[in-house]
């Protein structure tokens, strides 16, 4: 009996202890007083990042934003502001002169299921129709 009691209480304690820190505390925080941990975490583990890795993430984000823009029927103003926000997160200031922006938008339009004829009717894209970047969009769309 006493063994059972010991076993159950140990299990309960074990269960409690296993949740003491929840799932996972961000490793970018660790102990706030641990400056070494903070420095290493803030520097992304202390390793170099290739621009292609950031560009690939940027592309993923623009694709997702374009799919969402189509699905929610967003406005030109909101879409451009969202692209600016995403671009800034990846170190891009002039996203209008970044080819990846348009290839990602083309990919996003395809994934959202927009027909090619309807691209020109969408806010933001209707202004691009005569623009050189439109061909980049179509190229990615048709890929």
């Amino acid at each position: 009996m006493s063994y059972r009691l010991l076993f159950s209480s140990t299990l309960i304690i074990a269960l409690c202890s296993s949740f003491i820190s929840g799932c996972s505390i961000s490793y970018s925080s660790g102990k706030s007083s641990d400056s070494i941990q903070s420095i290493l975490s803030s520097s992304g583990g202390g390793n170099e990042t290739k621009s292609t890795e950031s560009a690939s993430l940027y592309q993923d984000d623009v694709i997702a934003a374009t799919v969402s823009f189509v699905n929610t029927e967003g406005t030109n103003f909101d879409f451009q502001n969202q692209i600016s926000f995403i671009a800034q997160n990846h170190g891009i200031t002039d996203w209008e002169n970044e080819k990846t922006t348009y290839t990602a938008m083309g990919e996003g339009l395809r994934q959202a299921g927009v027909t090619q004829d309807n691209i020109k009717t969408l806010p933001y894209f209707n202004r691009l129709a005569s623009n050189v970047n439109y061909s980049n969009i179509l190229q990615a769309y048709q890929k």
Partner: protein
Amino acid sequence: MGVNSSHANTHQQESLDFIYVNSNIGEAAGGHTALRIGEHVFHYQFFPNGHFLLVRDSWQQFFFFYHKLFNRSIYLASLSLTPDDYYKIKNHFTQLLIEQQQSLQALKEGDAHKRLIDELIHQNHVLTIPRLGLFSVLDKIDLENQHLENSIKQLKTDLPPSFLKDNISQVKKELQLQIFFLNSHSTEQTISHIQQTWDFLAALHVLEQSSLLNPESIFYPLANETPLNHHEKEVLKQYSEQLKHSILSLLYSSRPDKGTALLLQIAKYQVIILSLTTGYLTTLDPFPEPVKSVSIDDEERIILETLYEHVKKTAQAQRKLFFAETQHYEIAWSLLESSRARFYELDQGIEHQQVVRLSSGTLIPSRTGTILLDYFPVKVSELQSLSHKIEIQQHTKTEQIQTQLRYHITNNNCATALIESVNSAFKNPLEVKKSLGAWLPPNETLSFIPFIFYQKILAEYDIKHTHIIPSRRLKNLADLYQEQPDNTLMIWLRESNVLSSTLYEVRKEDTPFLFFTDEQVLSRPVFGLVNFSYAAIHGVMSLFTFPMDRGNALYESSRGMFFSLPELAFWNIRKGTYGHTYLTPTEASP
């Protein structure tokens, strides 16, 4: 809106992995769950400010922290999906991440909107503009500044005569109208638009007056930095041309936020010209305001030397990568600027015993400045009502965000939030079932426990295969057994405890314990009892050091006893962890 079938080849399959990371003390005693999509891992983490956030890490980074530093085993269950379903889930998680970042950004924007309205009410002739602080008006023009000024003047020759003056006049008129019509019912979008028009006006002024960089916003060359070589100068010249083109095209852009983009491009253009003039690399100070900072004490200075070399090498590698870049100059420059800034901070922090500023991710220069206001007629009472309205909205928004991002042990933790996000990628439970093989309700009994959640994934979803990556110590131990098959007993005896182990060094963060119990099962309660007693003895001894260490040793001992308790019931949590200082150079790279 017309739709078509987005993926012609439906036979092609994509896969994603559900991840379970087993427990260890410290960062995640309850185990952890995540979703690997391609080369990235999405998972929910708890942050010290109380937020429970969706995070996207590279697989390398995730593996580095959870496996190499925190010494935890990783279990992966692969699910095959059609490309449509795969991209649906990937886009959904990415969009959730963007929306989360934007909702946090919206709070900051709300504060900026209130500041703008208050500045207009007070008519104190100054207005705060982000990134304007990167520039200053200098009385003394030295040779370097002369070069800078000439380069700006040169840039302006590509614009039609009186372009800037005409634009300034037109933008001012627009602003007058926008401000005149501001009232207590004005929307956030209207105020955003006014802020963005101000930013553009500020950028036009900077160009028109040929304003030069603020010396405080520049990271000048460090003593040990090498001068620019011929190739590097050529690359910088090429990049300066790209920036020049960018500045000119932004002036004609329809982007709502072109003003703030212009300010940054002008500052970057100037800092590149400065680099070319001095022959040394100079970059902008990209740390945000306000920013977290830490002070470095004497004990840490010694350990920091290892880290210093690491950060220095990263900065040097980013420099090399930028000068070898052929496609994404802007991204490569930002990465170089961020890594150089971190190295600069650490270098100056150690050298001059200063505090070190910290910020993660790509850093973008954003130093704020003020612009002098002309007189704008405003309806003060309307603006006061508007300011009050924004204040209430901000309060509500903050509360909403706090509620949305609140961690809850059973209802909103890494497992429940993850499954809820997976489910919400689809329109209804039927679609989820069709795509993944089952629909798992997020709040099902005990599925909030990561281990049970993973078992449910294995049992319910169409899992094609599973894979286990043993924890770092267990992996190294297995390698030892393989290398010396005739010596297994000796290896087991040596590596079973922290005193003689060659695969682990004692860390105070791991609490006092004697035996590893992660590879033991039958003997776990016995070893657990020894560990408990060992921690208890430590606890008694720490009573004597209590006045010196303010009870830290006693606290660690009680944690040691606490984490030994599950071992009595055949359960292991503690596995020992590895610190940054115990990593070999190869191991330090994820």
